[in-house]
């Protein structure tokens, strides 16, 4: 085997090692998550499985719960629930209006 092929084998070996590291870390993290009891128990207590990804728009907080007249009107977890949500924030004054005095 020539020096160049040896170098190639080393480079490809390192690339394979990178991927193997990623796969091993992913498997470790998944196993850790599956073994974590607190998460499952939390959902058992509150019985709402949704992720807390939006605390500012209540219709996105629980996509599993349809809310007629709001973005998730037609079905739970409906498509296009927040078409411009990633682009446009609400005017601050709107949030201020909900302030209790």
């Amino acid at each position, binding site marked *: 085997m*020539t020096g*160049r*092929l040896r170098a*190639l084998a080393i*480079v*490809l070996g390192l*690339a394979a090692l*990178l*991927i193997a*590291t*990623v796969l091993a*870390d*992913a498997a470790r*993290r*998944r196993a850790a*998550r599956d073994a*974590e*009891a*607190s*998460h*499952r*128990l*939390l*959902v*058992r*207590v*509150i*019985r*709402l*499985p*949704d*992720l*807390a*990804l*939006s*605390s*500012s*728009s*209540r219709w996105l*907080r*629980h*996509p*599993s*719960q349809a809310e*007629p*007249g709001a973005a998730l009107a037609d079905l*739970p*977890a*409906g*498509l*296009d629930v927040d078409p411009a*949500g*990633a682009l446009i*924030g*609400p005017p601050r004054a709107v*949030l201020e209006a*909900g*302030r*209790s*005095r």
Partner: protein
Amino acid sequence: MRRQLALLDYAVGALGRRAGKSAALGAGLAFVVALFGAALLLTDAIRAEHERLVEEMPDLTVQRLVAGRPALIAESFADELRGLPAVRAVEPRVWGYYFFAALEANVTIVGTERADPALDAALAHGRLPREGAEVAIGEDLADHLGLRVGDAMGIPLDGDIVFSPVVGTFGGGSAIRSADLVVARPAHARRLLDVEEGWATDLAVDLTTEDEARVITRRITERLPGARVLERRLLRRTYELTFDARGGLLAFLLVPALAAFLLLAWERLSGLGDAERREIGILKAIGWATADVLAARVYESLVLSLTGAAVGIALAYAYVFWLGAPGLWGALLGWSNLRPALDLAPALDPLQALSLLGAVVVPFVAVGVVPAWRAATLDPDRAMRGAE
């Protein structure tokens, strides 16, 4: 085999001779794969996290609609449902949102009777509320309000402040579900949400077998006109659809980056330099077949693209799961004030990894081979003289 090894050897030599160009293309490819990979890894992980605990939901959730809006449902209706066959348990739930002006964010208040000490393991610190105005809250909310177990949380209500002793905080791995959560006894949740005794937000129905869901749904809507029944089984599918669409959208936004990279690669590779053209001419003159020239070129592109793709995937993984996707995570969460840290378990889908490789590696190899094929089909004499 020996022939292929010799071609591979030649290809590596050619890459080495154009080290600068090879490194630039490899880095560009790694960057594009990392961009795509990060979007795919993140959306896959969020979808997997959603699906992981859907089975803890009730089989059916019964809401009541009035004038097309969700309204409170009478607890007495739960007794009616308990009489239905295949219904194992019906639990009236009191939960809802409270706009916390100080945070400019909604918190989710959930009332629950569940206080079994075995369930205290759900919390990072303390225990579940067992009496009176006690509450257990999400760690992110506690951090924002500067609260710890043992403190009292002040909630403005009707011009007054209601103080609720914090007896526990949720956190750690469950932060992604509990960031904005306030768990209280049902009576206290009623007070905070202004829900009168005898009424509930919805009814959680558990069945003896999930297969009966459709039949029971029909019977419920017959008994309570205007009821909306959410089936867990259907939900699982809609989740899948939603996140597929979202993930696809995110990946779609990155298509211009891929196109730009391929255009660049095409420009770099199609403008074969005089030296490369002469090299191909010499190879042809000393007896290489066109297929050999092309094979050497394919090996060159494959070595470059596979190495670049491996580095790109590792970069994407490190960015999402080790660094917490700074920038991307914030963009996805939008303007939420209470936002959990990204703590997701990776869900690597081999099919998606393959399609990612297919979308990047195959076109890259193709744009490298076409100009070489054009040069290889030229007359060796003309190629050596640098003719087009």
